[in-house]
């Protein structure tokens, strides 16, 4: 066993964990605000809007995230049109490509999760809101969005964990997050077990913290649903 190598490289793992967290929260943060309106459109009475959102979630849930990432990072760069466009300074950065791919992917899943939650908001709550004379915007803000989110929480928690773990793909396009650091160590010190088991321990710790925080949130915001479920 070569734990000296790991001890020596712990600062690099810390840097990696920082990047893993940045990627996770940037992707989840942006996608959260995109997925809420998309969930409404997904349930829209307008068939064009409904099917457009459905097509988007179908494409991004129907293809592997790694393929999406390669298409955005390597694929787009192949076209001179893209390389000469005003977007290139952004698209040439691995960070931007990775976050774009992650956001597009996790937004597709989150949209379906929230849309499902929205469909399960009891009719009575909506009728009560109408009876109070709330406009649709006020209805959405005060009743529908909170009710939709609280009902989606358990599934959304899973999606957050999946996103945390999916950030390991960023190492394939040169970003040294936790998995990237581990892979780099295997290539320079010729050991495999120690670097990857260290990476696994870091992911496990991060997941544990995420799950604990999430349970607190769930108790605070969705506690009132417990009596109904139980």
């Amino acid at each position, binding site marked *: 066993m070569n734990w000296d190598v790991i001890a020596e490289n712990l600062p690099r793992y810390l840097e990696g964990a920082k990047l893993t967290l940045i990627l996770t929260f940037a992707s989840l943060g942006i996608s959260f605000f995109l997925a809420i309106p998309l969930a409404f459109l997904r349930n829209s009475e307008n068939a064009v809007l409904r099917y457009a959102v459905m097509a988007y979630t179908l494409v991004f849930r129907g293809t592997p995230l790694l393929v999406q990432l390669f298409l955005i990072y*390597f694929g787009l*760069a*192949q076209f001179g049109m893209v*390389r000469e466009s005003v977007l*290139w300074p952004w698209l*040439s950065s691995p960070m931007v490509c990775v976050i774009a791919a992650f956001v597009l992917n996790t937004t597709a899943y989150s949209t379906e999760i929230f849309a499902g939650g929205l469909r399960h908001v009891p009719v009575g709550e909506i009728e009560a809101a109408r009876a109070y004379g709330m406009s649709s915007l006020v209805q959405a803000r005060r009743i529908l969005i909170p009710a939709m989110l609280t009902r989606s929480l358990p599934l959304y928690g899973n999606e957050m964990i999946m996103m945390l773990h999916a950030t390991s793909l960023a190492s*394939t396009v*040169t970003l040294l997050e936790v998995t990237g650091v581990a*892979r*780099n160590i*295997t*290539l*320079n010190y*010729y*050991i*495999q077990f120690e670097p990857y088991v260290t990476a696994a321990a870091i992911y496990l710790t991060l997941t544990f913290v995420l799950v604990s925080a999430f349970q607190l949130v769930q108790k605070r915001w969705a506690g009132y649903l417990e009596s109904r479920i139980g």
Partner: protein
Amino acid sequence: MRLPAISLFAALISAGTMLSPANAEQLKIATDATFPPFESVDASGKVVGYDIELMEAICEAAKLDCDIFNAAWDGMIPGLIDGKYDALISQLTVTDKRRQVIAFSDVYSHPTFRFVAKKGAALDVTPEGLAGKIIAVQTGTPMDAYVTAHFPQATIKRYDSGSAPYLELTAGRADLHISYQAQIIHSFLKSDAGSDFELVGPQLTGKDAKEFGEGVAIAINKKNTALVEEINKGLAAVRESGKLDALNAKYFGE
């Protein structure tokens, strides 16, 4: 009602043979087939190239039963240490660092290393001249060690395969790439994608920097000294028979 049970049994057996360990006598030789013309995968999925032909000739001369297959670069040397593979032929340069963990056969070639960049970029290939430039390399290679040690002011981007740096060069995400000169010419400059690029800077060899190592050899598990000898005998026979010269002429003769 016997029939379904029997066919299920037959299916299990055939699945079992697929999972059974490879012939114990057969040598498992791994190569990272992202490095043409030395090693690459052809359209039919077979590994081909200079190293593959050389290894086949050595195995034939030494009467060894060899299975040469493609494996990912990042697991190759650890896989050899752990005994997953018996040997590696993948343009591996002999370095002191590697010699601490694996054994090498006799050296079979002395590669030339070179930078490649966009035509007309007018780069000054010195540590000061490349300050702030982006150099793409394959991780854990002698080229990686060389630029890391000698070009501290440049940004170094590292990739797992030998082919990804070329994608980055053509995309304009990297200014330079350093690799084996023969690989740059054959796998990049001769292709359409590489027509806008050229070799830059001096030709570099093991004499210029210790990071480039002592030449290219076949890597073998340290404990398997018998195999080192057998492969060296095979290599000597291939050299004497003129096959190595023929191979060099076939791949690198102009």
